[in-house]
């Protein structure tokens, strides 16, 4: 299978401070790929680079074989990448429905079937459709953030810490939905601190440390790996 998304030798700097160093990542169609690592390892920066919010100093980002690393964020959305940002970032003073409509900003035509699809995934959003986004609970906001990104009908969905700050039951529900979204044909690149849960869901994973990829393997292999178990799954050395 060929890669849908490929990052090759990507360097990103914030001023003089390197955030990513020579990052190589690929995501194939239909996969769920997990991006793991500690705080500040470069996970969010990787997603922001893919979305065009950050420009790489070196290396390339390619979608379906075409470079996108110099393309504006709003055009990258149109190319088929949806981004659920860290902290959800829903529009608090717009209604749930308006948040979803903004997700489809690049598209023309009827949104009814898309809305129905989103409300099918997250029935609670339909009940809250006229409420302002800011009045939703954390879990509902996460659902809205995912639904909003899906409204652009992405081929690739970037998810940044969807479990952050949520109760375990809600996290489980969100992860179930992520799997369902993949099964419906959307490829997923998932950033998570919650490594165990992410690896159980993912096909493959990458581990970032200080801006570099230090491990890349099948999710199962990573789950069994001693170093991963110690560093990210909270297990003591055996």
């Amino acid at each position, binding site marked *: 299978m060929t890669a849908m998304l490929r990052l090759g030798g990507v360097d990103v700097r914030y001023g003089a401070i390197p955030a990513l160093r020579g990052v190589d990542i690929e995501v194939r169609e239909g996969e769920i790929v997990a991006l793991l690592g500690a705080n500040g390892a470069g996970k969010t920066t990787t997603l922001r680079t893919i979305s065009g919010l950050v420009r790489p100093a070196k290396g390339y980002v390619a979608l379906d074989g075409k470079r996108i690393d110099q393309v504006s964020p709003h055009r990258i959305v149109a190319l088929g990448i949806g981004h659920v940002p860290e902290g959800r970032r829903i529009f608090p003073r717009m209604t749930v429905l308006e948040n979803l409509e903004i997700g489809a*900003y690049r598209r023309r035509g009827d949104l009814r079937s898309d809305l129905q699809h989103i409300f099918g995934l997250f029935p609670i959003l339909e009940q809250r459709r006229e409420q302002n986004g800011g009045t939703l609970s954390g879990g509902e906001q996460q659902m809205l953030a995912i639904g909003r990104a899906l409204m652009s009908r992405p081929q690739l969905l970037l998810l940044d810490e969807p479990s952050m700050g949520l109760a375990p039951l809600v996290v489980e529900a969100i992860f179930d939905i992520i799997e369902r979204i993949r099964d419906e044909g959307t490829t997923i690149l998932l950033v998570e601190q919650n490594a165990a849960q992410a690896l159980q869901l993912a096909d493959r994973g990458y581990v970032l440390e200080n801006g570099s990829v230090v491990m890349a393997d099948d999710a199962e292999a990573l789950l069994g790996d001693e170093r991963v178990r110690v560093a990210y799954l909270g297990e003591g050395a055996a």
Partner: protein
Amino acid sequence: MCFTQNFSQYLVIGLANGFLYALIALGYTLVYGVLQLINFAHSEVFMSGGFAGYFVLQAVVGKQPHGVMSVVMIVLGIAAGALGGGLVAFLLERVAYRPLRRRKAPKLAFLISAIGASYFLYNLAGKEFGRTSLSVPYIFNGSNSGIAFTIFGAQVQTIYVIWAVAAIVLLVSLDRVVAKTKLGKGIRAVAEDAETASLMGVNIDRVISQAFVLGGLLGGAAGFLFGLNFGVVYTMGFTPALKAFTAAVLGGIGNLRGAMLGGLVLGVAESLPLSCVNPAWQDVIAFGILIVVLLFRPMGLLGERLGRSA
């Protein structure tokens, strides 16, 4: 007798001025919403609308229109003013703001750039169109300031009726556009969180431009409406725009309905006291209000709504 004599007359004048302030104030608040910057060149957008309306009417008005033709002329003048204002606002954003944004310049640079653009524009207008006030052709039964009717002892000039009707139509239209259309949703999304809006496919540059143009349309229309009564001259933008800025701050900068309310409140607040003090106090009162608001309620009457949540 303070506040009793001519009370209704000053109320009418205040409301009439307030409608114009509201139209201009929206330009400040729209741009502030998406950029968190005060466009201090908005006075020249207003002035440009005045001249655009003047020249178009100058070209088309025959002998003393009345009846339906008067209305046609008003609509034409408003459209010309709006287009003139919208065009100048569009160019301002391109020339005075966008290059600085590209370079991620500090806010002070934008302020200086706007003031520079403002000086450039009004001096250009002064050089091209002369330094004396030009009368807009009479379009209403041989006068632009006749009395339409009298209510509670207040004489209501025809021009006040025109201002009120035009402003209400424009204000309601803008409110609907921002609430219901894709353009409006884009503006609100950028105002709330520009980066996330771009992740949703919103072109931030285009939305900023749209906010300038929308504000320019209203400001330009206001310029024409103002000129209809007071004539047009290159310096005409300075005081009304500064008052409209006060109105925008009073209503809560970034808040559209706040700007509308702020305009009317300011118009009335600076006018009513004139029933007991010398009219020379009018501007002193208006800018006194600005200082008081900034000191005691910097978020304005309705608070900041379009802008960030934090």
